[in-house]
């Protein structure tokens, strides 16, 4: 464990973005205490003011402090995306691992179900769920979690399929290991790296997804601040108060970028074969940020 951290720390770019990601989570956790003003307090006489000493990022149409709202939105977004990620991770990975390792009829049935889930666009799943649950944070979490679930099942399954045929698994069987033991000791261990990559690439996707749903009015409802929802409100004042867009847009971009870069560096430090090696490839590592692949899902990992 210390070994992995040490290897991780050696990668300067990864370290920088890792600290930034931690900073986002720190802000999210302490949001209640660090907001300079009450994010819900309206003051119609001070509406749409440009940045000033009192309001660093200006005020919105109701006179609420934008900086405070961005800070609270960090908490809302972090909560939504983290729970959605855990949802698809904790359900998808065990299912994928088990069907991949056992195979046969079970595998075929689960794969057809994920195929069926994959043919619906995320936004359609979200709309259906919102109709059922009602537009709320719960609805967004379920919609995002379900939309990424098939991807996690598939990636865990294909990784488990390749590990299943390895001789070290046969050696464990020869020593008397049961299949849950093999799943935990060998399969999980060896599929952790694609899973971590997938998670960190999905995290920005979740952020963008949550923001998109809120932007469309299907997600978090006002007055609760959320980055996408704030952008949605700010677009009406794009000409009269362009500063409103800056705060949430920068926060959203930086969060997505730092999650992506952190995952990439983590992946490299997790691989014992790359021990002691420093790999500098900034350009390919920035690529996923410029081409976020949330709406276009790869068919197989």
């Amino acid at each position, binding site marked *: 464990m210390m070994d992995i951290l040490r290897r991780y720390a050696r990668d300067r770019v990864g370290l920088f973005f890792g600290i930034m990601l931690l900073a986002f989570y720190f802000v999210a956790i302490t949001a209640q205490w660090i907001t300079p003003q009450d994010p819900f307090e309206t003051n119609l006489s001070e509406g749409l003011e440009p940045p000033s000493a009192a309001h660093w990022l200006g005020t919105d149409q109701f006179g609420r402090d934008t900086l405070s709202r961005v800070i609270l939105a960090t908490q809302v977004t972090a909560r939504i995306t983290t729970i959605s990620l855990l949802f698809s991770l904790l359900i998808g990975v065990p299912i994928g691992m088990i069907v991949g390792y056992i195979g046969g009829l079970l595998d075929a049935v689960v794969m057809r179900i994920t195929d069926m889930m994959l043919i619906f666009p995320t936004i359609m799943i979200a709309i259906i769920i919102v109709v059922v649950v009602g537009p709320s944070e719960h609805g967004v979490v379920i919609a995002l979690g379900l939309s990424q679930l098939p991807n996690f099942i598939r990636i865990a399954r294909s990784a488990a399929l390749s590990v299943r045929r390895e*001789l070290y698994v046969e*050696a464990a069987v020869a020593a*008397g290991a*049961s299949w849950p033991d093999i799943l935990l000791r060998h399969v999980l261990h060896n599929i952790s790296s694609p899973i971590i990559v997938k998670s960190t690439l999905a995290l920005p996707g979740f952020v963008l997804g949550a923001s998109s749903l809120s932007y469309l009015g299907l997600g978090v409802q006002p007055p609760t601040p959320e980055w996408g929802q704030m952008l949605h409100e700010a677009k009406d004042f794009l000409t009269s108060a362009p500063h409103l867009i800056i705060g949430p847009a920068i926060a959203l971009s930086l969060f997505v970028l730092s999650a992506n870069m952190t995952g990439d560096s983590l992946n490299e430090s997790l691989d014992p074969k790359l021990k002691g090696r420093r790999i500098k490839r900034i350009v390919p590592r920035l690529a996923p940020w410029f081409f976020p692949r949330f709406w276009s899902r790869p068919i197989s990992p």
Partner: protein
Amino acid sequence: MPPPAIFITRLPKGKPMPLDDVLLQVKGLRKHFPIRKGILKRSAGAVKAVDGVDLTIRKGETIGLVGESGCGKSTLGRSILRLIEPTDGEILFRSQVLADEAGEAMIDVAQLRPAKMKRLRREMQIIFQDPYSSLDPRMNVGDIVGEPLRIQGTLNRSERHDRVMRLLDAVGLGPDHAKRFPHEFSGGQRQRIGIARALALNPRFIVADEPVSALDVSIQAQVVNLMQDLQAELGLTYLFVAHDLSVVRHISNRVAVMYLGRIVEIGDCEAIFSRPQHPYTEALLSAVPIPDPDSTRQRIRLRGDVPSPSSPPSGCPFHPRCAYATSLCREHVPHLRDAGRAQQASCHRIEELNLSGVS
């Protein structure tokens, strides 16, 4: 290594074994892989990878199992350990771990339920051919060698650590290697790690599935010698699967020749090499290189390919490629029968043929 319970001197080569002390007896072992066709997965025949093998292995001996690729050698070895579930047949093993329940009687491994099978696995282990994929790249060497001990749960953590250190020492690795990862080792060192893992549970019987085929020739000798030393020290019994006949000749007391899922000839190592009684054995032996440029020996070239194990030829499975085949061979299946002092072969023409071996 704890003080070995039994000291067994290596059995003299070429001399007939005592008939008692049978460790493992395989009777009529079959493994058929069904071929499924179409979306309905209808069964359309089966690949008869192992098709009725009888084999007796005695305590402390090394039995070499040879044959060309695809003849079912590895499947046989894996079926004995039930890494592949055999389709049919008995695998009788004289178990010490399960002795309290069954006395000294032989236990049928093929019928054991999972809980007992897990305990029996302490006595039967395997060494793999490929030292690269047989070690988990994400585990360090100490964890790999200690894994069977952890699974069986017979030792606590510190006992396990001590045992791993002794095992590494026994296979010629140092204690500082325990914290390293497999990719830091060469092929020969990796094979030593695989051997240490196989020895961890103190087994009596080891299936060595082409343990040196993937290694350089210079490293092969080291690994083979290590296996022989460990055998002498620990009283191990080996089923040594290989296609390299010179390695087999070096290590084996007895040799079994497989063709198309069946044993066609079995006997003492020297007898098989000097006086083969089956035409297939003769053909195999003629492929052994002789380090003599003036040698005039003719290599026997077999016609055609190995027949498909899903539809073996009628009669003797070897008859389409046999230079000595008669109409009898085409119609009747020969069975293993005595041919010489310590040798059995399944050929109709044992008495008539005078086959040449290697000196």
